[in-house]
C-alpha cells in the first residue's frame, strides 16, 4: 500500500493517538509561521462551531519549516492538558504536525494527508492552502458540509477574484476542463477543497503521486480525477481568498503546476474526457462567479507583448514540433503586429492549447520543454485578455470568459482528432 511508504513512523504514532475521525483538515506548510497561527485558530473555530460533536483533527504536513510553524499548529490542540478558556469543547481536538522531508512538495504533503484521511477513515477531509489569508470559520462548513452531510465526494471552491487575478485559470484551466468534462469547475486548481472517504481511498494509491504532475500540481490532478471518475462534485463559494505575502512563482513554474498536471491527467484518463459519462449535476452553493471591482490591472502589457513576440521568434523551431503549421503561421503573424494592434483570438488560443496537449501526449520533445514553450503564448493571450477587458464590468467579464469556454468546447472535436491521430512515424 502506498501509505506504508508515505507515512513516517513519527506521524503514524501521532495518528494512532488521534484514532478514527469524522473530519480531518489538512495543511501543507513550509515556513508559514507568520500566518499559520491565525489560520489554525480560524480552522479550529470553524470546526468547533459547525462540527461540535464530530471527531475532528487537524494534520499539518510540513516541508521542513525552520520558523516554528509545526509548533504553532500543535499549539492549537485542545486536550485535557491544554484547555481553551475562550470556548468550550466536548472533545479533544488534535492538531498534529509531521515533517515529511526537506524538499518542499505540495504533492508529497497532500499525499500524506490523503493517506492519513484514508487511514483514519475520515468521512470528510478538507485541504486548506496555508497562504489563504482571508480564511473564515464558515469555510469549514462550506467545504466539509456537502461531503459530511450531503454525500458529496468532492467540494471545489469558488472564490471572489479580482478582475485580472488568476488569468491562467480563467483563460486555460477553467475553459479547457469544462470542455473536457462538461462541468463548470471554476477553480480546477483549488487552494481549498474537500473530499470524501470514498475518494480518499481511490486517491491514496493513485499513480499521480509518483509523477511530476502529482508532485507539482496535486490540486489539479485531484480535481480532474474526481471529474474523470464521475464523482459527485459540489462547488462552494468561499468569498475572497486573499494571499499571504509570499513571492509568486514564475510563470514557467506556474505552468508546470497547472498545465502539466492537466495534460498528464488527460493522458491518464483518456476515455473519461473523450466521451464523458453521465455524471450528477454540478451543484454550486452560493454564486458560481464573482468578480471584485477592485484591482485595476497592475500588469506590464508592453512586457507581455515583447515576451510573446520574442518567444515566438526564439522558439520557432520548438513550436514547429508542437503546433501545426497553420497555428504557427497565425502566431507569427500576431507577433508581427505592434502592441496597439496585437490580438490573440479565442480560436487561435484554444487551438494552440489543444495542439500543445496533443504534443505533450506524443512527447514530441521533452514534456517539460513543451510546457515551457507555452509561456510566450500564454503571455500573448494574457495581453489580449487584459486589453479587451480593461474597463469591462463584472458581468461583461463573465460573458467574455463564457465565450472563451464555448470556443474551447467548439474546438473539442479538433482535440479528439489530434488525440486519436497515429503517432508520427508510425
Amino acid at each position, binding site marked *: 500500500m502506498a501509505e506504508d511508504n508515505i507515512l513516517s513512523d513519527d506521524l503514524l504514532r501521532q495518528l*494512532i*493517538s488521534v*484514532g*478514527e475521525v469524522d473530519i480531518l483538515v489538512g495543511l501543507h506548510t513550509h515556513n508559514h509561521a507568520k500566518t499559520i497561527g491565525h489560520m489554525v485558530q480560524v480552522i479550529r473555530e470553524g470546526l468547533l462551531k459547525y462540527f461540535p460533536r464530530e471527531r475532528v483533527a487537524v494534520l499539518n504536513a510540513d516541508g521542513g519549516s525552520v520558523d516554528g510553524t509545526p509548533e504553532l499548529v500543535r499549539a492549537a490542540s485542545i486536550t*485535557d492538558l491544554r484547555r481553551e478558556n475562550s470556548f*468550550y*469543547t*466536548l*472533545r479533544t481536538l*488534535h492538531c498534529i504536525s509531521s515533517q515529511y522531508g526537506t524538499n518542499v512538495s505540495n504533492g508529497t504533503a497532500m499525499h500524506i494527508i490523503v493517506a492519513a484521511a484514508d487511514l483514519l477513515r475520515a468521512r470528510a477531509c478538507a485541504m486548506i492552502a496555508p497562504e489563504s489569508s482571508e480564511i473564515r470559520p464558515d469555510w469549514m462548513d462550506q467545504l466539509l458540509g456537502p461531503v459530511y452531510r450531503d454525500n458529496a465526494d468532492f467540494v471545489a471552491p469558488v472564490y471572489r477574484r479580482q478582475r485580472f487575478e488568476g488569468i491562467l485559470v480563467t483563460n486555460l484551466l477553467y475553459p479547457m476542463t469544462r470542455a473536457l468534462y462538461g462541468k463548470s469547475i471554476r477553480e480546477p486548481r483549488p487552494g481549498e477543497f474537500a473530499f470524501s472517504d470514498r475518494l480518499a481511498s481511490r486517491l491514496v494509491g493513485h499513480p499521480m503521486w509518483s509523477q511530476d504532475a502529482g508532485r507539482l500540481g496535486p490540486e489539479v490532478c485531484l480535481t480532474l480525477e474526481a471529474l474523470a471518475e464521475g464523482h459527485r462534485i459540489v462547488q462552494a463559494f468561499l468569498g475572497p481568498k486573499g494571499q499571504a505575502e509570499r513571492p509568486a512563482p514564475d510563470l514557467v513554474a506556474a505552468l508546470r503546476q497547472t498545465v502539466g498536471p492537466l495534460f498528464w491527467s488527460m493522458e491518464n484518463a483518456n476515455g473519461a474526457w473523450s466521451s464523458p459519462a453521465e455524471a450528477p449535476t454540478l451543484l454550486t452553493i452560493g454564486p458560481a462567479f464573482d468578480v471584485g471591482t477592485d484591482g485595476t490591472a497592475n500588469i506590464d502589457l508592453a512586457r507581455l507583448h515583447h515576451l510573446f513576440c520574442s518567444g515566438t521568434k526564439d522558439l520557432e523551431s520548438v513550436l514547429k514540433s508542437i503546433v501545426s503549421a497553420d497555428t504557427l503561421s497565425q502566431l507569427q503573424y500576431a507577433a508581427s503586429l505592434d502592441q496597439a494592434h496585437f490580438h490573440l483570438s479565442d480560436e487561435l488560443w484554444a487551438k494552440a492549447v489543444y495542439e500543445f496537449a496533443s504534443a505533450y501526449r506524443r512527447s514530441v520533445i521533452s514534456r517539460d520543454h513543451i510546457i515551457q514553450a507555452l509561456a510566450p503564448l500564454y503571455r500573448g493571450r494574457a495581453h489580449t485578455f487584459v486589453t479587451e477587458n480593461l474597463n469591462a464590468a463584472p458581468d461583461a467579464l463573465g460573458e467574455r470568459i463564457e465565450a472563451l469556454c464555448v470556443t474551447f468546447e467548439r474546438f473539442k472535436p479538433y482535440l479528439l482528432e489530434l488525440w486519436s491521430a497515429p503517432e508520427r512515424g508510425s
Partner: protein
Amino acid sequence: MALPKVPLWYKDAVIYQVHVRAMYDSNGDGIGDFRGLAEKLDYLQELGISAIWLMPFFPSPLRDDGYDISDYRSVHPSYGTLEDVQLFLRAARDRGIRVVIEMVLNHTSDQHPWFQESRSSLNNPRRDWYVWSDSDTRYRGARIIFLDTEMSNWAWDPISKQYYWHRFFSHQPDLNYDNPAVREEMWNVMKFWLEMGVDGFRLDAVPYLFEREGTNCENLPETHGVIKELRRRLDENFPGRMLLAEANQWPADLLPYFGEGDEFHMAFHFPLMPRMFMGLKLEDRKPITEILQQTPKIPDTCQWCLFLRNHDELTLEMVTDMERDYMYDVYAHEKAMRLNLGIRRRLAPLLDNDRRRIELMNGLLMSLPGTPVIYYGDEIGMGDNIFLGDRHGVRTPMQWDGGWNAGFSSSDPESLYSALIMNPIYGYQSVNVASQRRLQHSLLSWMRRLLQVRKSTPIFGRGNIEFLYPDNHRVLAFVRQFGEETILAVNNLSASAQAVELDLRRFKGNILVEMFGRNIFPRIGELPYLLTLGPYQFYWFRLRRI
C-alpha cells in the same frame, strides 16, 4: 457484634443504595419491608458491600417517594415497625455492614403535623416553623428546580391565606431554619436515629435551608452554620458517625460543605457522573479529566461519594447546554426517557446492556477517588420502565429469581407496589440474582470480584490520584498512590482496540501485576510503556519493585 472502630470507615466503604420497599417483601403484601431487607443481608454481604444507604422509610403520603415526610420518628407502616428497624440494624451490624439513612432536613410533607399546625392560624406557635409570606414575589433570585411541575417556589395556602415557600414540590413546604426551635428539633430527630444505631445520614437537599433576598437562596453562609452545629453535636455525642451531603453543585461550590473538616464527611460528586457517561459515548477522556482537574482538594478526613446511577434521574444540571443536548441525543432519544433536567434510566439500559461498557463504568466507579455507591439492581443489570411516571421506572422491585413476582413477593402481582420489569431483555426471567449466582461469569459474579479487588487495598478509597496524559485521548490512565503502594489504572473508553504509550519512567524498575488475574506484565524501563487494550477494556496494575 460491634463494628470495628475505624474513624474513617466511610473512605473505605462500598455503599449499596436501596429502598426498603424495593428489596424484599417478607409478609406478602406486595411491598418490601425491613424484615425482608434483613433477610437479604446475606446476599449483600456476599456481594461485598460494606454499607447500606436506605432511602426514606418514614411515614409519608408518598407523593415524592417518601421525601415528603409526615413523621420523622416512626416507620411507614408498609415497611414495618421500629422494632423491625432495630432487628435490621442488629442484623446488618452482625455482618459488618453499616447503615446510612436518609434525613430530609429542608422540608416536610404538607401532611406533617408541624405544617398542619403551622397553617392552622397566623398565631399558631408553629407558624414560623415554615416560611410564610403575603406576597409571592420574595426571593425571586431562586430558581425553580422541578421545572416540569412547578411554576413558582411559592404556593398559596387557602387556610391561612398566605403563601408558603417550597423549593421542591408544592406539597413539600420548606422548614424555616431561621427558627432555633426548628434547628433544635431536627437535631433531636437525628439523635433519635443515632441512638437506635444508624451509622450516618445522607442529608437531602442541603443547599436550600435558608432564604435571603438578593441571593439565589442556595449555599448561603447560614446553611453552613447549621451544618457545623449538627456536626459538632454528632462528633461530641456519636463519634464515628457520618454525614453525607446531597448537594447538586459544582465541586468548587461544594467545597465549603466540607468546611475545615467540620461540616460534611462526604458529599456526592454530581458533575462527574454525567461526564463519565459523556466520556464513554464521545470515546474521549476529556470530560472526565477536566471535571476532576476542577475538583478542589478537600480536607483529609473528607471524601467524595461517587455513583453511576441512583433513584433520581441522571441529572444534567451540572453540565453546559451543549453537553446537555448531546447527552439527551445519545442517551435519551425518546422523550419519555427525560425528566426535569435529566434522564430517568438505569445503568444497563443507558449502556445498551453492553456488558463491556457496564464493566468499564463500574471499574471507573471503583477506581476513581471516592466512595462508590451501587444502586440496587445495577449489580445484575436490571432494566427500567420509562412508561411509569416520575422516577418510578428506576424503582421497580428487585429481581431475585425467575419465579412468582421475581421472587420479590408472594402477593398477587396486582398488589405489588410497582409493576415488575417483564420485557424480554431486562425482564426478571432473564435478569435475576438466582440465575446470575449460578454462573461464574455473570455480571453479578464479576461485580463480586470487582469489589473484592477494590477492598484488597485501601488505596482506592484513600489514595491520591495523578492523571497520565497519553496522546491517545481514548485512553484514561491514572496512578493512585497511598503510602508505599502504587496502582496504575488504564481504561479504554472506546469501542475499538487501542494502543497507548504511557510515560512511566519515574516508576522505572517496577513490574506491573494485573490485579484481577495477578499476572505479571513487563518491567518498566526508560522507553514509553506500550499497552494495547481491547474495546472498553480496563486494567488495574499494582506496581511492585522486585
